[in-house]
């Protein structure tokens, strides 16, 4: 019995150490990417802008349809739910207050983060994992092309640029969806709705949401890259780490979001 407890402890200890090691790897990757973005030119090894732009298309433009659809749905859902619960107090008119704040500060960044983690984080992990197995990463290294500069830095740039853009779009669509339903249910005019919104939502709230989404973008990239580099053992390994990357980055996003919300409401 004691042995089994010992085993268990040891396994926990080992995965804790592995977790910390992965965390450290993430920090190193992030620092190296920044290094290459800043120093690359001076060493005649710039981070390619065309690669970053291509990634931006992939991360951003191609994600617009799904993010629009989801955001519209969630916006309407929030309005339905908000009016339903506020009706208990006869305070339906206050629905804009709740929705405006929570969409811009929470739902926009969160929904975008989760969708991007599922779309782009997973494909990043799969791409890097496949490149590792087929020795493409080794090939880059022996060509004197730093893989962090060539793969990670453009991915990071594209995420840091596109996740906030998508978040902004997502928030606008959500608010539109909510406004549409509120207009139908409570007969509030579009002008009145927008008036209410601009009264409630301060520019600081917008920045809060966008700032958070930048952080999500960085998290998704690093988690994807790390899981990609940890791939071993063929196609099955790629599948396993891809799934793992999605689960971990969504967890990381939600935990970060909670910490952010806690700190932000305190100050």
């Amino acid at each position: 019995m004691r042995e089994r407890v010992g085993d268990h402890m040891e396994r926990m200890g080992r995965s804790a150490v592995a977790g910390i090691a992965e965390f450290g790897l993430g920090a190193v990757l992030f620092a190296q990417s920044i290094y290459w973005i800043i120093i690359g030119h001076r060493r005649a090894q710039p981070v390619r802008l065309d690669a970053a732009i291509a990634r931006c298309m992939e991360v951003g433009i191609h994600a617009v349809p799904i993010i629009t659809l989801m955001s519209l749905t969630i916006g309407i859902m929030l309005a339905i739910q908000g009016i339903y619960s506020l009706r208990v107090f006869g305070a339906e008119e206050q629905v804009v207050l709740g929705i405006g704040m929570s969409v811009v500060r929470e739902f926009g960044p969160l929904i975008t983060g989760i969708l991007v983690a599922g779309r782009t984080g997973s494909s990043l992990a799969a791409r890097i994992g496949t490149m590792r197995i087929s020795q493409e990463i080794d090939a880059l290294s022996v060509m004197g092309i730093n893989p962090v500069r060539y793969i990670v830095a453009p991915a990071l740039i594209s995420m840091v640029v596109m996740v906030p853009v998508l978040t902004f779009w997502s928030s606008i669509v959500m608010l539109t969806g909510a406004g549409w339903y509120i207009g139908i249910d409570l007969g509030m005019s579009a002008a009145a709705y927008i008036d209410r919104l601009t009264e409630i939502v301060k520019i600081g709230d917008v920045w809060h949401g966008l700032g958070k989404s930048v952080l999500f973008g960085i998290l998704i990239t690093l988690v994807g890259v790390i899981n990609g580099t940890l791939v071993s053992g063929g196609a099955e390994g790629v599948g396993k780490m891809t799934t793992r990357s999605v689960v971990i980055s969504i967890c990381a996003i939600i935990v970060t979001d909670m910490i952010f919300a806690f700190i932000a409401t305190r100050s």
Partner: protein
Amino acid sequence: MNQPALNRMPSDAEVVATPAVIEVRDLITHYGTRKILHGINLDIRQGEIMVIMGGSGSGKSTLLNALLGLLRPTSGAVRILSQDLNAISDVERTKLRQKMGVAFQGGALFSSMNVLENIMLPLREHTRLDRSTMQIMARMKMQVVNLAGFERLMPAELSGGMIKRAALARAIVMDPRILFCDEPSAGLDPVVSSAIDDLILSLRDAMGMSIVVVTHELESAFKIADRICVLDKGHILTIGTVDEVRNSKNERIQNLLNRRTEAEILDPDEYLKRLTAAGA
């Protein structure tokens, strides 16, 4: 080319006079706690084709990775063109790697680029040539490996032999001093495989490259090698010319040459006896 052209079997005097482009000293590597290479000493000389042979799991790929600086040794040194691969700075290593070309076993072509872009990539990253010049240079190398006309194909659309040739073209596009080939002819039909052997020979003859080839194809090894290094369980059994290796009296080498290793591994008792006999 101002260095003397080597004939197939250089005389001893010539051999001593040719400088080493790769020096491996007491190289020991581990995977985790498992010792894989047990103190390798190996010189690869200017303009020679060195074939590294050995059974499966003998450590060929591990040695190659150590030579390429992809695997950090536990101890020992790898000097390439007189520079210690694991002691120099990143900047110097990047420069050094531009003098090395590698054709990986599976080709390692970038799947998102077509053949021409793949071959052009080292030029794009390391030179300031304009695009059309780079294209001409890449096309020239494609001509060398007999791939002209396939520029626009994606790696997924290539056959096994074409992948190997494209990988070779990419490896030589910067005109490296040293070329590494991992299993260049494995899994190919005899005609294609023989064509690749000829290609490797002509690269050495025409461009004076020093070439390291990892292979387990005996026929190909005997055809192209100036010298053969036989690995066994992380030790070097012998380094010698084709004839020296072929006529070796060493039992393990003969087993390897006669492909008896697999049968041997299947018989644990016999295997154990051999092991203890070798240690004694």
